[in-house]
Each structure stands twice: as C-alpha cells, then as structure tokens.
C-alpha cells in the first residue's frame, strides 16, 4: 500500500497505449485460433474417424431411417398403463426414501447445527458429492446387481441419486436461518432435538418442500429411463420395442413418457402454488 502511494504509476504515452492494444489483439487472436484448432481436432477424431459412414449411406437413407419412427402403435397403449404407473410409483417412492435419507445428510451438512463438525460435516459432504457425481443409470446398474431386476432397484437408485440436491439445498437453507428462535428455544431449556423441531424446521420448511417437489419432477424423468438397465418402469418397454424393431411402438412409449412428465409438471405447479 505504502509504496503505491510513494511512487504513483507514470502517465502512459500514446505509443504505450497503442502497443498494449496491439498486444491485446494478438493474445485474443492466439486464444481463438487455439480454440478453433481444438474443436476441429475433436470433430476429426470423434466424428469423422469414429463414424461408420458406409452404414449411414446417403442423406435420403438417413431420412428414410428416421421416418420409421413416424407413426404410432396404438395396440401397445393398453399394455403401457401398468409400466407408466410403475414409473410414477418409482419416482414417488424414490423421492420419499431420498427425503428420509436427506434428514441426516442435511442435519450433518449445515455448519450451524452439525453435531460434531470435524466428522459429521465431511461425512455429509461426501454423501452429497457421491450421490450427485454418479449418474442415475450407474446407480441403477449398481442396485440391479445388488437387489436384482425390478422396480426396487429403481427406487433405491433414485433415492440415493436424490440425496445430493435435496440435502445440499436444505443444508444451505438451514445455514441461512434467523438464529433468534433458536436462542429462544435454548433459553427455554429445549434440547437439540427441540431446537431443530421448533427453531429450525419451521423456518426452512417452505424452501425444503419446494426443493422436494422439484426433485420429484426430475425423478419422474429419471425413472422413465431406468428400465433400460432392468430397474422397472417404461424404460423396459422402450428397450423391448427397440430390440424388436417395432419403431412405431418406440414412438408410443415416448408419447407415454411425455404425457407422464407433463402430468408431473402440471401437478407440481399446483402443489407449489398451494404449499408455498
């Protein structure tokens, strides 16, 4: 600080300014040039060299292949009802179980109420990171291996996958609470549990509910594809149609997924409006 005051920066001359502008331009040019080379290299390696151009054939053939998906297999719809409901159930149960798992994660992960910071705080952060950095399909593969094929694996996968987001947002909400009511409950002789129930929970409830609804909506999307790895729901039907080359059936499944997701969005919009 003191030497800045002692020797003020010399006033730049016009020549200096022009030189620095020129240098700036060269630096920018070099940066974008490098970026372009990197993109071109990626396209060459991953797209040009790694695609089976022989198989794609002409543009007309690509359009023809895509055309196979246009059309709906109406005969499939009655047998889609069961899997659609199953998908919704997996999303609901997965979210519910996720919320239960989040209670310790959020409690340990909020700096102001974590019971024993050196141990419980890192533990919670580990849970959150693990949950989020592993894709739901990978979690589903893991649980299919653990508990076998079927919706249970899907429920477990979604529950574990949900911890990260719900717990992180809840822990942040807890860290932002007004400490006043907490003081009041402590001063009345309340224990830690009572502080959480009376001092913390009422303050964070609206935010936490909103996060849970949001996660539930995402879980409907997720559960629609879990069947591809054998974890129940619409994904399994989708996969089967694909394997039997019933492309109109694939479109039917996609429509079912779309309808379910739209239903979820409408529903969550109304809950959000009434609850919060």
């Amino acid at each position, binding site marked *: 600080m003191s030497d800045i005051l002692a020797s003020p920066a010399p006033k730049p001359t016009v020549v200096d300014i022009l030189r620095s502008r020129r240098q700036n331009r060269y630096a920018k040019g070099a940066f974008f040039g490098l970026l372009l080379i990197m993109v071109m290299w990626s396209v060459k390696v991953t797209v040009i060299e790694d695609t089976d151009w022989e198989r794609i054939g002409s543009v007309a053939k690509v359009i023809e292949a895509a055309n196979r998906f246009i059309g709906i297999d109406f005969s499939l719809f009655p047998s889609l009802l069961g899997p659609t409901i199953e998908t919704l159930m997996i999303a609901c149960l997965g979210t519910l179980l996720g919320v239960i798992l989040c209670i310790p994660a959020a409690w340990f992960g909020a700096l102001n109420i974590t019971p024993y910071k050196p141990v419980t705080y890192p533990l919670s952060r580990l849970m959150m990171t693990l949950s989020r950095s592993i894709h739901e399909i990978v979690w589903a593969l893991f649980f299919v291996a653990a508990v076998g094929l079927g919706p249970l694996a899907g429920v477990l996968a979604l529950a574990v996958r949900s911890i990260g987001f719900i717990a992180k947002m809840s822990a942040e909400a807890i860290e932002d609470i007004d400490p*006043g009511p907490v003081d*009041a409950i*402590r*001063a*009345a*002789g*309340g224990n830690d549990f*009572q502080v959480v129930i*009376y001092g913390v929970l*009422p303050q964070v409830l609206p935010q936490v509910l909103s996060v849970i609804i949001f996660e539930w909506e995402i879980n409907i999307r997720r559960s629609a594809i879990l069947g591809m790895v054998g974890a129940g729901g619409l994904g399994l039907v989708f996969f089967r149609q694909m394997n039997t080359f019933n492309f109109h059936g694939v479109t039917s499944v996609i429509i079912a997924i779309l309808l379910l997701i739209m239903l979820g969005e409408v529903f969550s919009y109304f809950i959000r409006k009434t609850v919060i």
Partner: protein
Amino acid sequence: MVVLEVRDLRARYSASGPEILKGISFRVEADDFFAIIGPSGAGKSTLIRCINRLVEPSGGEILFFDREVTTLRGRQLRLLRRDIGMIFQEFNLIDRMSVMDNVLSGRLGYTGNLRTLFRAFPRDDIQHALSLLDRVGLLEFVDKRADELSGGQRQRVGIARALMQTPKLLLLDEPTSALDPKISREVMALIKQMATELEVPCLCNIHDVQLAMEFCNKIIGLQDGNKMFDGPTGEMDQAKLNEIYAMEVL
C-alpha cells in the same frame, strides 16, 4: 433473599479478542426489577446472555439460588434454563407457528421429545397458556400465525412464552427497543405488573434511561465492560448518567 449473585464476571468472544465484560459483580434480590443501562457496545446483552449461558463467560462466578451456573453442562444446564425466562429485543418468535404453539414452546424444557414431535402438550400446559394469553390480552389471536401480529402483540406473545416456563427469574434483553415509545411503555408496564403478580425478579437490559428510571428499582450502569454505577434508582442522577454515557458520541 438473594436470587442471583454475579461475582467478577468476565466474557470475551474469542481467546484473543477484546474483553467484553471486565469483572462485573452484583446481586439480584427476590423483589428486584433490575435495570442494566449503558451505551451501545457496553456489554449489556453479553452480560444478560451469560446468566443463562447463551454466551459462555470466560471467568467469574454466577450463583443462581446459591448454585454455581458456569460449570453446568447438558441436562443440568437445560434444567437451569427452564427456571430462567427470557424476553428478546426482536421477540424471536417462530413466525410460521401459531401464537398458541409459540407460547407452548416456553414449556419445551418440561416436555419430552415424542410430545415435542407431535406438538402434544399436556392439558394443564394448554390451560396455562390460554390463561396467560388472556392476561396479555391476546386470547382472540390464539390461532393466528405469529408473523401476522404487530410488534407490540408479538412482544406480548414473547412475555407469555417466557412466563409459561414458570420462571424464578426473568431476563429481558432490550424488550422495548423494537417498539415505538407508546407501545414500549405499555409493554414495560405489562411486564412489571406480571412480574410483581407472579413474584418473579427481573433483570432488564434497557437503553432508554427514562423507562429504566420509571419502572426499575435498581440500576447498574455499564460502560465498556466496567460497572460504573450500582444502586437504587433514587440515587441515579444526571451527573452519573453523563459519566456512564460519556464515551457515546451524541
């Protein structure tokens, strides 16, 4: 009878930080309405929060009915706290709960975890809460949410909550600072009246010297963590006030 005796109380917020309380001693008798006055930053809030250990004292002794407070831990500390009611400057109510639930929360020190979870308080507690709400004039607001009330009403809920503990001492941390002058006087009068009726001694932080002189029988003057005055209200005069507030730039 001596309810509370404080000897050479010291407090600092961090080991290397400045000392906020520099050896305060005083005693509160059974029929006292004690005022603690002094400029901002004198340590009034810290002093009051040391009594129920919301702030940890760094030295000295606090005797509550001849029992050392500073060494209590866990359950013993909670049992102490439920005998000491506290009223806060910002009311510290649970905004999203009803007036009734807020008043009942004063009873948590006597309530088990299962009852807490389901908010299932014993019938006696509910009856007690209703009679207190009647006394503070809020009976018709029982089911209102706490955040729907005005400042004065909110502090009345705070008073009912503190009295719900059937305390043996009331700590008042600037109970009127968030209120306008007229409501302030009403709230102080209510506290004084209830305290006299229930025979609860009070220890009250207050920066409004007028109110202190009007409602309290004894005054402690704090300045920068030191006790500058300790005596009956009658002995306080302008010269001593000037001395206490000397460091405050007006």
